[in-house]
């Protein structure tokens, strides 16, 4: 746990296996993280209440949800901190209650591992990025599948624009397959899709390795991407991006 302003480490919690994903709830008082299924240990989601210092000091979460099937590969808090939305290695999505730990909703829309989940700015919907070459849009409360965005490469990360109906997808392929595709500079592209039409309308080249993470700036005028090539690229949109409209 870190202090943003000073960069000081506030707490260190040791775990039995690798920590895959973590986050604060909306109120900023509860943290959750998921640990991998490794070395004989099962996959767990642990919850700590920061208002109770004993939990942090003794490394004792107030709740630990075991995950029996495929491990959790990405997770985010629900809109009001009442639940967790978790994506699994097999492509399933589960909504766990943050109070009781039970599964509230379960859907399977993806056929392969979910690499990333990001909420919209108003947290009413979220986008998932999956190894099955698609990204999908879901409603946060019901987990109802809304839209699908198709590519021909595994999608590592996806982000929703805060003020437009746009989503950006970043991907590439398995790190071990990198040598088999073009190593020409800039072949790895971030792709922009329209949320309602599911159609691609733009690509940004630049990375020469698979893109692992994408994020919009909260003002919607720029986005950033980080890749396997070791670079973080910050892009500011042209005027055309804001003026663009589909024929409809």
């Amino acid at each position, binding site marked *: 746990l870190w202090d943003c302003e000073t960069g000081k480490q506030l707490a260190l919690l040791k775990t039995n296996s690798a920590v895959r994903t973590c986050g604060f709830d909306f109120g900023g008082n509860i943290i959750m993280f998921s640990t991998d299924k490794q070395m004989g240990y099962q996959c767990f989601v642990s919850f700590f209440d920061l208002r109770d210092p004993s939990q942090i000091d003794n490394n004792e979460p107030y709740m630990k949800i075991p995950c029996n099937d495929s491990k959790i590969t990405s997770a985010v808090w629900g*809109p009001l901190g009442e639940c967790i939305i978790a994506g699994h290695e097999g492509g399933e999505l589960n909504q766990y209650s943050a109070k009781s730990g039970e599964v509230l909703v379960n859907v399977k829309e993806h056929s392969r591992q979910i690499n990333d989940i990001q909420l919209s700015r108003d947290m009413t919907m979220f986008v998932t990025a999956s190894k099955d070459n698609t990204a999908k849009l879901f409603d946060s409360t019901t987990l109802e599948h809304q839209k699908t965005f198709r590519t021909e490469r595994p999608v590592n990360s996806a982000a929703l624009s805060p003020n437009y109906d746009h989503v950006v997808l970043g991907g590439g392929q398995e790190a071990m397959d990198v040598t088999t595709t073009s190593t020409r500079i800039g072949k790895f592209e971030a792709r922009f899709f329209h949320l309602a039409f599911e159609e691609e309308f733009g690509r940004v080249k630049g990375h020469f390795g698979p893109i692992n993470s994408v994020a919009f700036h909260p003002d919607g005028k720029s986005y950033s991407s980080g890749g396997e090539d070791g670079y973080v690229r910050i892009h500011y949109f042209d005027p055309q991006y804001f003026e663009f409209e589909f024929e409809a």
Partner: protein
Amino acid sequence: DGEERAASAPGSSPPPPPEEPPALAAGEAPAEQAGDAAAEAQSEGAGGEDGGAADEPSFSDPEDFVDDVSEEELLGDILKDRPQEADGIDSVIVVDNVPQVGPDRLEKLKNVIHKIFSKFGKITNDFYPEEDGKTKGYTFLEYASPAHALDAVKNADGYKLDKQHTFRVNLFTDFDKYMTISDEWDIPEKQPFKDLVNMAFWMEAECRDQYSVIFESGDRTSIFWNDVKDPVSIEERARWTETYVRWSPKGTYLATFHQRGIALWGGEKFKQIQRFSHQGVQLIDFSPCERYLVTFSPLMDTPDDPQAIIIWDILTGQKKRGFHCESSAHWPIFKWSHDGKFFARMTLDTLSIYETPVSDTVSWGDFSWSPGGNIIAFWVPEDKDIPARVTLMQLPTRQEIRVRNLFNVVDCKLHWQKNGDYLCVKVDRTPKGTQGVVTNFEIFRMREKQVPVDVVEMKETIIAFAWEPNGSKFAVLHGEAPRISVSFYHVKNNGKIELIKMFDKQQANTIFWSPQGQFVVLAGLRSMNGALAFVDTSDCTVMNIAEHYMASDVEWDPTGRYVVTSVSWWSHKVDNAYWLWTFQGRLLQKNNKDRFCQLLWRPRPPTLLSQDQIKQIKKDLKKYSKIFEQKDRLSQSKASKELVERRRTMMEDFRKYRKMAQELYMEQKSERLELRGGVDTDELDSNVEDWEEETIEFFVTEEIIPLGNQEPAWLCPSCVPGAAGKLRPAGAVQVVPASQRAERGNKSKPVRKRCLSPVFTRR
């Protein structure tokens, strides 16, 4: 019966032989009985004569003795083997057209007949009917088994003894069979008409071409209409084929491969037309006329029943013939003549043209049918003192219309031009006294008298060779990577072969001519990363250079208007897709398909129009193109209208959903405020009153610009607004070239300029 009477009444002269053939076997039984009777008669006689001298008691039955023991009880087991009248008939043959001879020459005749017919088996009996002292001209022969009789009929029928006598041989049983054919003829029952569906449907619809696509690593197969905007799917089936598909040469059938054999599909709905059962089938080939299908399976061969290669009649589904197969290395093993009348294959030492073996005991190089006539071209490698030879042979006359001797030959390859107008033989030779291999092209002009041959010498190694279909040009890729060149040659009427143009530094390893000629795509497939060059050979200009990264296949559509380049999952595991280009090299579509495997255009049947009609259409082309353009415009606007409609609906639905979500969001505002201690964080500027604004200036650099020499405000090239449509952050610098430095009197140091484009401000 003659024998019977003779046995029962010894001493009497043999009665004249009957017209009917002796029931020879039947004669044995009566003879047996007659023998008993005779024995009885003799013993009685003996007894009678010897009556006085016999001291022994008489063992004879008393004269009125009636035998009350039936023969079945006494001789049952022997009687079981009693020959029936019908036995042995199957082993009898009748030979007609035998010379009629008198008794003096009968012995000689019998010997001759015996010699000829004992070839088929042991002759157990013969009979030569006579009349008026001469034989009647036909004989009966009996063999030890019916198989021999059949053999004799098969092989001796038609045997020419001399000028006037040609044997006709028949089974004895055949006479009865043919005499008992009834005079009534039953009309065969009418089979219900099997409607094979409209096989030519796909050509009638709108004259768009079709192509098949295999994707999802072979699990799905689809058939599409080719449309400039987007392919239109006709049919898509899961697991339609287990490996891949093939179209028949005229496009009528689609063949799919399965463990148990081949299935043929066709018609509007791609119904299953025919099935051919051949376990483990791997390769197939169609005859050009689409009447026959050849299938090969390595599993099925047994020494006495060849089943490795089977030739089927497509319409009836019948197995016509089976063949052995040593190896499938050179599929198709059977090569069809262009009209499907003959097919031929080459084995170790024989070139067989069914059903006439041409020759043997000569080692063969390779052979190939002319696509334009029943001419076969083959070459024979060097043999001791005899040089290598290329021969053109006309069939069925077997006349050698051209022979060409070649010296020091290492290898030959035969390339026919599509219409059979020219044959190119690529000859690799090692000239005497050198080590290296030199390549020549021997061009045979098939349509000219006595087939003149011209030679083109090539200085470099040949990578690929291809004739222009329907034309008289050919293209050659030569050289060694990375210095590969392409040369275009024209075979002129005046006997010259002219090099039209050569392009060097090409990235290509395969030549793909348009099926209509004139246009060609030079492709660098696989290891050359999919480089493409589109060339118009009428003036040898390169129309376009493009790339489809890692392309593994190039397929022209049958009309020569479109080219498809594709990356197959079988050769590359990522980016599997097929791209559609115009013949000029303009990219029209990119179609990604999950684990795309193969695309095949459906061939067109040959045109039904006469040459005059084609000429007329070409003349009126303007009229037709106006109509087609109108049609295209209508369909395009229809498509875009549909697209717009679809988008409108999607947008409306999405808006509805978003509205609901927004409402929920608004309802939850109070909870959010509570969770964040009363601070409103819903918008970026929700609590802007809490913000403090601070402006900081900091020193970056100092630049002294003497007045008078001031250059106008200068923007670095990338910051000129509107040029690239982008604005870059300030601070871009450019080094002033040495030539301009002198003006400022500062020769050593580069002068740095700062770009004056606007600076971004950030809080």
